[in-house]
């Protein structure tokens, strides 16, 4: 069966949803402000005769109708990086600031990591972790190509992440962009739909709970944890958030994203979720002509040591 059909009850226009999922995605690049401002990139595209279209909700994104950005000067100089539009959303939600201590738990191949580094003005400490050594080499390649110097790359299981290599014991912010069943990327890679199984959804949701839990534990009270996936499956989204709301000192916070989104859901398959789940964002392909996505923002509310209180205590 096509796994997308199980989500039809969640969308406003079933036909538009399925039709959008069936269309290939345009090639999109993000400009890398560590190397060049969007205006300079635009001038270089013009000089080089490269067709591009701006993305109306983000001045650093360009759609390239002619496809792959791999063979032009702006790419060679690390001014641009191929990155799907929705993939920039968790970085926007995280809103990392120069000088902060930031964790990216599942960082490879580094599109979101390098976006966060640029938001930090390449200052502060950005710990980019991944458990897959092969994918880490792609991350290192991308980080160096884009001129990132504030990234520390670690190869750990994020569920047991150790801060021993660092002279601090908590992060200001963490991005938890977990491995998932990836139906939202079907416009790029339709194979994800053929390989989909419910067993895999449940197994991977268990891993996500562990990774998100550890990220909350290593973030300071008042700090921000952003959770994101590219799946529509509530088992991997709202159910994972429900788990940490019940077990860790954190709360879902309200935040805006610059495109059309739908609220997280409070009911699925006989299960009820916390009403605050509506503060999360679901992104469906037919609303903005993008991939599918899920993004939530949490605030850590109490010291990680006691683990008891879930209300009140906030910023330092």
């Amino acid at each position, binding site marked *: 069966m096509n796994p997308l059909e199980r989500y039809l009850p969640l969308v406003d226009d079933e036909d538009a949803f399925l039709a959008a999922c069936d269309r290939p995605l345009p090639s999109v690049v993000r400009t890398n402000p*560590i190397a060049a401002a969007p205006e300079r990139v635009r001038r270089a595209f013009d000089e080089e005769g490269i067709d591009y279209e701006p993305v109306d909700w983000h001045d650093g994104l360009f759609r390239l109708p002619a496809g792959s950005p791999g*063979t032009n000067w702006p790419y060679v100089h690390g001014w641009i990086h191929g990155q799907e539009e929705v993939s920039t959303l968790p970085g926007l939600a995280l809103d990392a600031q120069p000088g902060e201590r930031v964790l990216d738990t599942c960082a490879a191949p580094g599109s979101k990591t390098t976006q966060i580094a640029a938001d930090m003005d390449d200052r502060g400490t950005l710990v980019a972790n991944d458990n897959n050594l092969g994918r880490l080499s792609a991350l290192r390649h991308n980080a*160096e190509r884009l001129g990132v110097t*504030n990234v*520390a790359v670690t190869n750990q299981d994020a569920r047991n992440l150790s801060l021993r290599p*660092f002279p*601090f014991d908590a992060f200001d912010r963490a991005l938890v962009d977990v491995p998932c069943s990836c139906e939202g990327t079907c416009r790029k890679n339709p194979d994800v739909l053929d390989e989909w199984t419910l067993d895999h959804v449940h197994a991977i949701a268990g891993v996500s709970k562990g990774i998100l839990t550890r990220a909350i534990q290593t973030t300071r009270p008042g700090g921000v944890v952003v959770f994101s996936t590219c799946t529509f499956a509530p088992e991997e989204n709202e159910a994972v958030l429900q788990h940490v709301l019940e077990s860790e000192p954190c709360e879902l916070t309200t935040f805006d994203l610059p495109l059309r989104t739908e609220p997280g859901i409070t009911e699925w398959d006989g299960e009820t979720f916390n009403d605050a789940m509506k503060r999360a964002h679901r992104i469906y392909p037919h609303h903005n002509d993008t991939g599918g996505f899920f993004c939530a923002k949490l605030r850590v509310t109490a010291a990680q040591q006691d683990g008891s209180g879930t209300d009140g205590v906030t910023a330092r």
Partner: protein
Amino acid sequence: MSDDGSDPSNDDGSDSPSNDGQRFDRLPETAADRAVPGRPTREEVLAWWEDRFGIDRSVLEPYTFLEKGAGKVWIYRGEATDPCRIEALGMAFLRTRQEHWKPTTRAVSRFGRHATRNVVELDPAEAARFVAGEDQPIDRWDGDWGYLIAAHELSGDREPIGVGLYLHGELRSRVPKGSRTDVGRLDGEE
């Protein structure tokens, strides 16, 4: 400076501390602080970029320099323990422990815009050949031999491309294999 309790002695059994290829060690400030023989100092690194390319010390001042792998100096702008055993800290920056120090392509790409000397400016056809990894004669260069920054003009400003080795009237591209690109060929340039 080793405070992790590991044995700092050499593989050959001698007592002097040596470079450990599996971890990052911060460079000593000056020769007087040097414990590991042959390790470059922070002062030498800053002086080298200033002497060779005219890059002002203030540009590199905020950064930490580390050695991992003999002679391989990394540049990092964050916090980490010293020593530190992780996959990467910042980017590979400079090859030392050899007669002529060699900057990495990425170092030149990131910091080369601050250079005021030993920068060879290439025309569009030359730039395309250079980034494809080709060697080529550049007869007009009358500056230093050795490692130069190759640059070209793009959207109104000079932009560094990578490291070239200039010898006997020839500029040898040192763009690593994985980064070579057939960029100019799209425009029908040779």
